[in-house]
């Protein structure tokens, strides 16, 4: 395939700037740009996915595959996206179309993925807002079970599970027993969702002009809160147990290939690659900007934030485990005290073991009849959670036990909200910038109204996540849209730049922008290592997914083993939707290539049939580079 773009840098400079007389918006300063990229990369996953992976995959040992994945996969792809966006100065669709018209579908795929991810990501922010609104009461509403109307007992569903679970599943989500029962729209979630989209709209209203100002707060505030939590958490009892548990390396786990797969996917999704957002952000940069250093800064800050966030999280989880362990022991102590009429507080946490041994010797039958629970600190520490479970169940339970719960709850939820908000900017820019560049926005609509319309459409579509079964649908979107299509898009990105655009031309571009050619590390990664890693990860991911029958965990109060979650398989129609969601973003890639090929064939045939010696074959509308437009 021949590239239809001339390699002259001067021409390319014009390409980005001649846009019907309007200058391309630009960042006020470098800090805004860096903070926006860091904010986009650092999201909820850094706080609630990475610590979980660290815990499950052998603590400190997980850092090894994680850092290897960062060095060989994350940083090269990041540098590539920032460089190509900065050089070609258009959004994702324009960039790939410039490299080759056959690859215009890659940009469209990025745009579709960004849009779909933005839908469900903001729903999580709506949940965070709901918890934030509810944190201004004393006592916190998830501390106690609600009482039945006759004042004799607590609500049964709450009594069988915990108040925290009840508040999340019943009072927040009002979840249905399975995905086929849709339930109705939950009005409180609808208004929280409207608020979330309203806040997003305010920051996004004029594109990067307003985003650039908002990120001063949204990108830096989480670090402040994490530091406050770190100081507080380290003073809590049980914190050291949690930290020891997190960081004690278990080297044997590295032999399990799943660890490497999860490390590679984690670094990939954590850096928000292949969304088109990073390309959009860097396209507003001046061309003479050191994108190599930017990539290194963003990548390293993202990983450092993950590690930094896991310290307070695990200190607090250790505190919670210790609390639960002491509650378990105290329950046993009460049983023993009541059964043997021993003086109150004679048995304490310290002498419990000796008392138990003594009583077991003298009255073994009675002690056995009591059915004392086996209390093991390790079991409580093993109760890990990731995702919404970590934030809305485990963490809220820990917060109740801390003195001054309201303050910690408010701080925590504001931190989650700003983490998510700065990632939302990237998702929306990944949709807005290509649309603006492709001139799909009618001139008469001002940008403010267009962004408003985008937010309104997204809000209406996201209402499905406020239904009773919304959480199940969100898990589907999260699992199928936010994973496989991104790997495919990234693979096409890197092969397109290295093999179609040409490594030499790309190196020249980088030399023009940063002042020196990319060194051996970048060359080796771009040419061989990263595409290979992506391919292996993609294949492994598909194999792992295909092995297991897709199931989901449902909250069913009528389940026999309630409060354990009931594992149900997806019904056929739901699974069809899953497959559709995974394949729909990827379809534009072959479709656009096919369409362009058909056009090319048509022109070639016409050319052969009506060959005219006076025809100037050097001139045809396609090769004009000053107007980058898709011929739809």
């Amino acid at each position: 395939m021949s590239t239809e773009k001339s390699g002259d840098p001067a021409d390319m400079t014009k390409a980005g700037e001649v846009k019907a007389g309007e200058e391309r918006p630009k960042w006020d300063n470098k800090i805004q740009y860096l903070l926006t990229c860091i904010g986009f990369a650092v999201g909820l996953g850094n706080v609630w996915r990475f610590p979980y992976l660290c815990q499950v995959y052998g603590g400190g040992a997980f850092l090894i595959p994680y850092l290897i994945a960062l060095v060989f996969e994350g940083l090269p792809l990041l540098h590539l996206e920032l460089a190509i966006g900065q050089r070609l100065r258009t959004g994702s669709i324009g960039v790939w179309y410039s490299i080759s018209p056959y690859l215009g579908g890659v940009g469209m795929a990025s745009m579709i993925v960004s849009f779909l991810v933005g839908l469900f990501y903001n729903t999580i922010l709506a949940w965070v807002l709901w918890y934030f609104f509810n944190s201004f009461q004393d006592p916190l509403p998830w501390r106690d079970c609600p009482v039945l109307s006759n004042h004799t007992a607590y609500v049964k569903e709450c009594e069988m599970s915990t108040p925290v679970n009840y508040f999340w599943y019943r009072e927040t989500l009002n979840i249905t027993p399975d995905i086929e029962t849709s339930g109705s729209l939950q009005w409180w979630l609808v208004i929280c969702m409207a608020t979330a989209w309203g806040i997003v709209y305010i920051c996004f209203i004029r594109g990067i002009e307003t985003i650039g100002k908002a990120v001063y707060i949204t990108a830096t505030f989480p670090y402040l809160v994490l530091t406050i939590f770190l100081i507080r958490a380290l003073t809590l009892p049980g914190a050291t147990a949690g930290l020891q548990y997190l960081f004690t390396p278990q080297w044997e786990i590295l032999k399990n290939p799943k660890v490497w797969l999860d490390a590679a996917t984690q670094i990939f999704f954590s850096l928000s690659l292949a969304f088109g957002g990073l390309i959009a952000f860097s396209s507003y940069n001046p061309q003479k900007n050191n994108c190599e250093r930017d990539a290194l800064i963003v990548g390293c800050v993202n990983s450092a934030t993950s590690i930094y966030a896991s310290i307070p999280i695990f200190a607090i989880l250790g505190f919670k485990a210790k609390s639960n362990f002491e509650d378990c022991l105290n329950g046993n102590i009460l049983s023993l005290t009541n059964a043997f009429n021993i003086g109150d507080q004679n048995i304490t946490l310290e002498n419990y073991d000796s008392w138990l041994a003594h009583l077991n010797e003298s009255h073994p039958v009675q002690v056995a009849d009591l059915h004392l629970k086996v209390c093991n600190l390790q079991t409580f520490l093993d109760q890990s959670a990731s995702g919404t479970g970590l934030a809305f169940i485990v963490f809220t339970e820990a917060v109740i036990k801390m003195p001054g719960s309201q303050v910690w709850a408010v701080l925590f939820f504001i931190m989650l909200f700003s983490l998510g908000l700065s990632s939302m900017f990237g998702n929306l820019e990944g949709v807005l910038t290509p649309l603006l560049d492709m001139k799909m926005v009618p001139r008469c609509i001002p940008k403010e109204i267009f962004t408003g319309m985008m937010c309104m459409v997204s809000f209406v579509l996201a209402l499905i996540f406020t239904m009773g079964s919304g959480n199940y649908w969100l898990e589907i979107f999260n699992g199928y849209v936010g994973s496989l299509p991104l790997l495919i898009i990234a693979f096409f990105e890197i092969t397109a730049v290295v093999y179609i655009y040409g490594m030499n031309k790309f190196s020249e571009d980088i030399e023009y922008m940063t002042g020196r050619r990319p060194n051996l590390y970048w060359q080796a990664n771009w040419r061989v290592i990263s595409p290979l890693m992506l391919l292996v990860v993609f294949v492994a991911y598909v194999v792992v997914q295909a092995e297991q029958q897709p199931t989901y965990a449902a909250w069913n109060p009528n389940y026999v083993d309630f409060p354990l979650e009931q594992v149900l398989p997806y019904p056929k129609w739901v699974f069809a939707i899953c497959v559709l969601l995974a394949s729909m973003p990827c379809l534009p890639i072959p479709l656009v290539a096919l369409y362009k090929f058909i056009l090319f064939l048509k022109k070639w045939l016409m050319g052969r049939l009506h060959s005219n010696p006076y025809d100037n074959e050097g001139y045809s509308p396609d090769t004009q580079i000053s107007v980058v437009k898709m011929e739809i």
Partner: protein
Amino acid sequence: MLTDLFLTLCISTALTAVQAENRCSVDAKNGYKVRLSIKTALGNKAYPWDDSEMFLFRATLAFAMRVYTKSDQYNVSSVHVCDETPRVSFWFVVSNDTELVSAEDVEKAVRISRNRINSAFMLTDQTLEFVNIPPTLVAPVQPGTPPWLIVFGVVISAVCAGVVMLLLSSFVQKRRKKGILEDENEEERCEKQNGATHEVQEGSDDFNQIFVEASSSTKL
């Protein structure tokens, strides 16, 4: 004669008292077990459990019976206690002259006055436990407007205000830009008429400077 009557009366009351005493036992049919966890509730400020405290308990229970039956036939002597243990737990029964009060009545009386009984000992439902009498659960106080709606109202008003302000400011900015552009357009239009029109440059001498400049460059 009188002394005989007096003697029989004494003996019969003593007998009934002994009978009532004997009816208090572990697992008594109309009795309840009570457990106190004073050290758990009060920590350092825990008071030792002695006969005076027991007397207070019996008096409080008699008070509860009086409130429930709305009569004054109950006294400290109506409450009989047995099987005290170092746990601080014991069984009690309530007698009404000669008969024992039924378990249901005792339960109702205790539930009605539970708060008063707890406060007499500075304990709670969990630390002053009447085994098999369910605690009266206190429903959490429900304010008129749920507090979260208030916070939501504040946030959504701020958001709406922000949106309106931003839209207005960009609208005003566009108007201002259009105003400047319109002025420039008018000037351009002036220049395009007749081709030869020049902008009138007024100098201090109050005549058209352009012709002055032009004349200096012409070789006339």
